[in-house]
């Protein structure tokens, strides 16, 4: 495997060997390693010194169920720190079939320009894409699929990325060529836009899957893992109901963000529940699909296709985080309206979490009424039109809070919280506060833990463990939902890695990778100027009581500072 460096100023490709200290990392861990080794932590995230890195996880490349995720990273324009956002779809798989451990976009054009980069095992071509300027993600993807064929993988940005908005993500094709698998968080779409790249087109039709040192052992471990995954009850829930099933769960704990994180229960919960979602999709038929895979070979199939009453598809997928942030958090109790807002976010190439949070702050400032779908859509259209309120909202929730002078901003390190109010699920609050990524739904959720989520004294250990596992899985390229299969067949992780690479890893490799990744990320953030004061929830959450439990976030600061008290002990070369 090699490292492909694409210079976006000179438009040259340089292929390097993988340095030895990078060889045992992939995905999120490799991103952190590259950032520490090569990117000035003080650099302008939208300047030529920043790099945009595409790194498939260590297990990517073999169509193992739920194990082909792509991690995309760089210095975040939203947080100013380390950023990894990952997505399903085909980008990760196809990059490994090029023979790449990572693709690194470097530098930036001197004059503004817009290009598509076409990559195949034997070719790297920059193609002028000025005709795609300002075009939405869906139209852009359709045009590129028509030009390059249905077998390519594509990572692309929408108008939001071109405008360098800090809530812009990078979309990826799913296995049906639908461009809605977004590496959403932290403004990485703006980094891609700053390098003048509209899309990365990866054509691996003449490539090959990465080699496997011991194919028999690999297949044996794969079989055990698949069986464990299929047997797990969560797999059945997610196949039938998807991540939307979290809505009633969060609501039952009083943790469902409602009207800008002012309440934990929403009177419209039944209308936005997974049960209603499923009933609607089964009744509507046509394009509707309750059980859809975003990656080839996935046995969980948590994705869906949401269609209107005539059966015409609106958006795929409709996920819990969007239902929370663009539904209850905006006071909107209608799945079809949420799906239409989701489509707008996708087409602009925006993170629906950051956008939903920013819209709710705008609503609190009187820019729209809570519950008013058309006013929400009008504000999103102001982003598309480049109008001032659009720029404020498109730069994220912290930007909206500052511009509209609203104190109730649900963000850490400048990044919006996901759909779990941390006053009701305090372990997740510890994760939001201390994760090097900022408040993030992929960094270590704790809602599933069988603990008293309101007790401030028991959350640090739960969060630490969840963060280590999440970082480990993100380094493997493994979907967090596959963790339930690996959780009951833990030996399959070292077995798969050892068979794939010829290593001799022991049983605790997942935790080791997670700790190493977090240590590297903390190192980058510290060099970028982050300190203990950045590892806190916003102060209003320690004062303002959240109904129905009337809970505040009361985990002590000195407890928060213990989450990473092991970091210095980890050997990072």
């Amino acid at each position, binding site marked *: 495997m090699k490292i492909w460096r694409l210079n976006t100023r000179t438009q040259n490709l340089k292929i390097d060997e993988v340095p030895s200290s990078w060889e045992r990392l992939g995905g999120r861990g490799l991103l952190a390693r590259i950032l520490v080794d090569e990117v000035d932590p003080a650099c302008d995230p939208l300047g030529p010194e920043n790099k945009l890195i595409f790194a498939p996880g260590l297990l990517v490349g073999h169509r193992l169920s739920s194990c082909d995720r792509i991690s995309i990273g760089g210095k975040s324009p939203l947080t100013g720190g380390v950023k990894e956002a990952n997505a399903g779809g085909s980008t990760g798989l196809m990059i490994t079939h090029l023979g790449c451990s990572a693709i690194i976009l470097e530098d930036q054009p001197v004059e503004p320009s817009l290009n598509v980069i076409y990559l195949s095992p034997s070719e790297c071509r920059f193609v002028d894409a000025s005709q795609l300027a300002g075009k939405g993600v869906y139209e852009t993807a359709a045009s590129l699929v028509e030009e390059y064929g249905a077998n390519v993988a594509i990572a692309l940005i929408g108008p939001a990325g071109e405008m360098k908005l800090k809530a812009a993500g990078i979309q990826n094709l799913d296995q049906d060529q639908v461009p809605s698998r977004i590496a959403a968080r932290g403004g990485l779409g703006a980094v891609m836009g700053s390098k003048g790249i509209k899309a990365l087109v990866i054509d691996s039709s003449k490539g090959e899957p990465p080699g496997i040192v011991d194919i028999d052992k690999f297949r044996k471990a794969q079989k055990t893992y698949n069986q464990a995954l299929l047997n797990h009850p969560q797999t059945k829930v997610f196949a039938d109901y998807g991540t939307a*099933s979290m809505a009633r*769960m969060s609501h039952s704990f009083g943790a469902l963000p409602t009207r800008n994180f002012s309440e934990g229960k929403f009177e419209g919960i039944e209308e936005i529940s997974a049960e209603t979602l499923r009933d609607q999709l089964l009744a509507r038929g046509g394009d509707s699909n309750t059980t859809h895979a975003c990656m080839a070979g996935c046995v969980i199939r948590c994705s869906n296709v949401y269609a209107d009453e005539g059966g015409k598809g609106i958006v795929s997928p409709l996920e819990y985080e969007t239902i929370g942030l663009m539904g209850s958090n905006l006071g909107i109790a209608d799945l079809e309206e949420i799906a239409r807002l989701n489509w707008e976010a996708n087409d602009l190439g925006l993170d629906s979490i950051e956008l939903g949070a920013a819209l709710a702050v705008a609503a609190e400032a009187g820019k729209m009424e809570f519950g008013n779908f058309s006013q929400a859509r009008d504000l999103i259209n102001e982003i598309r039109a480049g109008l001032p309120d659009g720029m404020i909202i498109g730069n994220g929730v912290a930007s909206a809070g500052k511009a509209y002078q609203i104190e109730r901003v649900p963000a850490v390190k400048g990044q919006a919280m996901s759909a779990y109010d941390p006053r009701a699920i305090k372990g997740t609050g510890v994760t939001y506060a201390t994760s090097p990524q900022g408040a993030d739904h992929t960094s270590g959720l704790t809602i599933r833990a069988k603990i008293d989520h309101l007790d401030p004294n028991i959350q640090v250990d739960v969060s630490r463990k969840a963060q280590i596992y999440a970082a480990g899985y993100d380094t493997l390229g493994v979907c967090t939902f596959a963790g339930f299969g690996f959780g009951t067949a833990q030996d399959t992780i070292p077995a798969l890695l050892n068979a794939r690479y010829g290593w001799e890893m022991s049983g605790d490799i997942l935790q080791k990778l997670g700790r190493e990744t977090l240590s590297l990320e903390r190192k980058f953030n510290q060099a970028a100027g982050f300190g203990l004061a950045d590892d806190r929830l916003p102060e209003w959450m320690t004062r303002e009581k959240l109904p*129905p439990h009337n809970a505040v976030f009361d985990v002590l600061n000195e407890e928060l500072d213990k989450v990473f008290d092991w970091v210095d002990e980890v050997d990072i070369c």
Partner: protein
Amino acid sequence: MLVEVHLHATLRLENQERAGHIIPVDLPESSTIKNLLDQLGIDIDPVHMLFVLNGMTSGLDQKLNDGDVLNLMTAVSGG
């Protein structure tokens, strides 16, 4: 006593003969969550379930009271 039971996701499907997924359940005094599961015929391994009683994590042996709201779900996470 009456307990309001909220059945989540697949539990609803497995109890299709009951109307809706929010159902009142009449139980003898001093019944526990386990007694309620037995009465409803839910036989999923409790290890994989969450019991949320009046908004708080609860356990199989928890005694129920008239007017309690109990959410029953397969433990999932993510999204």
